């Protein structure tokens, strides 16, 4: 079955430190991979996506993610965390054209000042 795993329910980092939010996937074929962020009482906001090409993808607000096919991972990273980055982050995969996204359970990122 197609699935997305976010192994950490919560990630805590200090402001200014680098952050990583982990995501692994299990799908057949070549996936399209996405990261979304959700602030309280808000919808999901698109951060970045990997379709094809360069394995390192840069997105909004200084976030980036690296696609690793051999490890079936797509970890979200940022070199220097901000308190305002504190939110709920979702990894998602789309397995083929015209189908819906499959989401992970989400990881709460907490950045302390």
């Amino acid at each position: 079955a197609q699935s997305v795993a976010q192994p950490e329910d919560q990630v805590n980092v200090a402001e200014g430190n680098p952050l990583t939010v982990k995501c692994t996937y299990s799908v057949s074929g070549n996936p399209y991979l996405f990261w979304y962020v959700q602030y309280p009482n808000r919808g999901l906001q698109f951060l970045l996506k990997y379709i094809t090409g360069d394995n390192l993808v840069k997105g909004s607000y200084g976030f980036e993610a690296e696609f690793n096919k051999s490890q079936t991972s797509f970890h979200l990273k940022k070199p220097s965390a901000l308190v305002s980055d504190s939110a709920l982050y979702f990894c998602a995969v789309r397995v083929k054209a015209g189908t819906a996204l499959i989401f992970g359970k989400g990881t709460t990122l907490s950045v302390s000042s």
Partner: protein
Amino acid sequence: GAGVSQSPRYKVAKRGQDVALRCDPISGHVSLFWYQQALGQGPEFLTYFQNEAQLDKSGLPSDRFFAERPEGSVSTLKIQRTQQEDSAVYLCASSPGGQGQSGYTFGSGTRLTVV
């Protein structure tokens, strides 16, 4: 419009009532998706439209759930005889093309509470 608009933002229904949730996608967006997000969980797929055609409804949890998009723009998700387990945030998303290579734009959701 500039974004995906969903209404109402909050809905409280008594168990057994019917509810209708509305989604206004971005103008011209071909694809429209409905998701259900339970508390503390990731969104789960309900159904997908390409224009007015409902191409996938495999995620609808029961025959009490029904969705339509009759003119290929606004969509309505209807839940009949609501149950407590239907309490969740219902998210709508739209995408410009039929292939979904672009990011999906999500609305702010409708929070349904069944009492």
